[in-house]
């Protein structure tokens, strides 16, 4: 196997290494002059378990950017999206983000990462000071936590806390009506799952004080089999179940819970159910699952929203996802902000973005707002309803009231020591 080596080899190969490195990297990477077209970089997850996050985000961004370019681009500059796969690894996300700015000359970033990746990109934005819009990460602390706050990073994404407030009040009403006192929760064991569940129960109890949670389960993210969780919950015999499982995990869970006839034994509140990714996949979708809306083209029930959903489906032959509308919103906000700032300069655009309200098909009242204080999205359509097995899947959605949401969110922030 190993032979003992003459030092000669090591020297030669060292030098070879160095020169090789030099040659490879000298050529492509010479700083370019600012081009007429403006490049926007986007690290996201295009491969592996959650590739759908990246693909549906990319689809939405490109769909909207085509409109922007057709309308003359950003401040007269045509937009070129540079979208790369981070494979869901934070160090790759960070590296790609830096490379997009430093090498490919991107002047802005869309961060299409989830969880840890988004925090990695956030650090890059902090380091390089480039304008960055988080378009996928729902982790509350990303914008709520002042330690995280940087002036050049925004978020065009719904948040667990908002869902929980609306969901909590919605569920409490039903709990009161149907006398659901014993609750169980089942959430994926990672930050999003833990926080959202905690907040949901917080507000559920606030609106319906006599509710008690008698069983909690924490399956791993991407766990293939939930049987033990399902049976555990059946043992506890709760009257209602809350779960914030999403995507493939949710469909697995439903399929596996179905054959235990779980849905006939309790009311189920699955916040991430009302998304086409889940709705269209589950073959025998049980009737009457309560869910928050992710993206459905029937809510908000406006022609704009329906039109957008159809346009997307027409182009990509699949329905948009929750990630799709969030990314589309990012583009709309950016376009509007650039128009307002009449410049593509990152700082000016950031200033314009702060507190910006735009018309938007996904707005609760037809508009969404980039809240100035924590630079995150509010006013988007949010509500809960019950599912039916076929289109439109969620016939009636009760819209949440943003006034209450914002009051309670402020309270929550205080309790977290964020303000």
């Amino acid at each position, binding site marked *: *196997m*190993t*032979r*003992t080596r003459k030092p000669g080899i090591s020297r030669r190969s060292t030098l070879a290494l160095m020169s090789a490195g030099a040659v490879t990297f000298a050529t492509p990477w010479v700083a370019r002059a600012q081009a007429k077209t403006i490049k926007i970089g986007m690290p996201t997850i295009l491969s592996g378990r959650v590739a759908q996050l990246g693909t549906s985000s990319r689809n939405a961004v490109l769909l909207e950017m085509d409109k922007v370019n057709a309308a003359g681009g950003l401040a007269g500059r045509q937009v070129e999206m540079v979208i790369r796969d981070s494979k869901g690894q934070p160090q790759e996300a960070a590296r790609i983000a830096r490379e997009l700015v430093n090498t490919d000359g991107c002047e802005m970033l869309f961060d299409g990462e989830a969880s840890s990746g988004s925090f990695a990109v956030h650090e890059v934005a902090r380091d390089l000071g480039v304008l960055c819009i988080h378009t996928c990460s729902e982790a509350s602390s990303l914008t709520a936590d002042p330690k995280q706050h940087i002036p050049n990073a925004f978020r065009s994404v719904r948040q667990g806390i908002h869902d929980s407030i609306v969901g909590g009040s919605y569920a409490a009403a039903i709990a009161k009506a149907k006398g659901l006192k014993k609750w169980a929760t089942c959430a994926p064991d990672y930050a999003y799952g833990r926080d959202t569940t905690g907040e949901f129960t917080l507000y559920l109890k606030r609106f319906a004080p006599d509710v008690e949670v008698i069983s909690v389960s924490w399956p791993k993210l991407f766990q293939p089999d939930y049987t033990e969780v399902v049976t555990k919950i059946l043992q506890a015999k709760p009257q209602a179940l809350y779960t914030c499982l999403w995507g493939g995990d949710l469909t697995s869970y439903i399929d596996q819970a179905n054959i235990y006839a779980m849905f006939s034994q309790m009311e189920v509140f699955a916040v991430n159910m009302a998304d086409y990714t889940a709705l269209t996949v589950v073959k025998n979708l049980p009737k009457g699952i309560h869910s928050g809306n992710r993206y459905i083209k029937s809510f908000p029930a406006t022609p704009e929203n329906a039109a957008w959903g159809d346009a997307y489906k027409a182009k990509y032959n699949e329905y948009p996802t929750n990630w799709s509308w969030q990314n589309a919103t990012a583009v709309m906000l950016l376009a509007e902000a650039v128009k307002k700032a009449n410049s593509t300069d990152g700082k000016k655009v950031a200033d314009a973005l702060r507190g910006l309200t735009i018309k938007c098909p996904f707005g609760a009242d037809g508009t969404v707002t980039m809240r100035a204080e924590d630079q995150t999205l509010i006013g988007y359509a949010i509500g809960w309803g019950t599912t039916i097995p076929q289109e439109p899947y969620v016939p009636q959605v009760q819209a949440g009231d943003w006034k209450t949401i914002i009051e309670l969110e402020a309270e929550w922030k205080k309790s977290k020591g964020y303000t």
Partner: protein
Amino acid sequence: MLEIRGLSKSFGGVKATDNVSLDFADGSLTAVIGPNGAGKSTFFNLITGALKPDAGRIVLDGIDIAGRSPPDIVRCGIGRAFQVASIFPSLTVQETMLAAVCVDQRRAAMLHRRFPLVEARERAEYAMELLGLADQRGRTAATLSHGDQKLLDIALALVLEPKVLLLDEPTAGMGTEERWRMIDRIRELWERQKITVVFIEHDMDIVFKIAPSIVVLCYGRILATGAPEAIRRNQAVIEAYLGTEHHAGAAV
């Protein structure tokens, strides 16, 4: 000197070594013979610590080394070579020697200096000379001839300057002339080193020709010990060997 007292080892019910007591005087050359399965190799394995004895003492110059770990026993001065040449395939002959000396000089874990260490040089050279491997020094062990590999194995034991050298069938798998060349080397080496040499051998002609004293093992017990003539005439030995080893018959 090396004294074995009541050494026993059994596997399951089978007594591979059964209450063996022996003395090997300093500077003696002893051949261990016996039919297959007589427990010759087990005997070696017990002495070198490859196996832990069930009972008995192994006393080298007054220290009982029975049941110690192989490295300990080696450091006490018992070196061994194996039936199938056991070497370090990727190292050259010289490196093997130099490295072994480093270990013997308690420098096996030394980090701050470079291999090879100058202190190791002389002994390595000498061992290579002694076994006629000097002109092979540059070759990696894996590429050596079978005979040379066995020599290297022996050199590996010898370079540690053992008091006692155990050779498990040094001539195994060799042609007749090669056997004699090997055995002459061993004898010469014994004469020059004045160390205690114990070797297992099947070829009776060799044994009776070179070994001043012989130990005969059979079913783990000592059948006989003594000078070649005595062994030749020993009735028990003849019976033990009759039919099984025609060499003995011829030798009688």
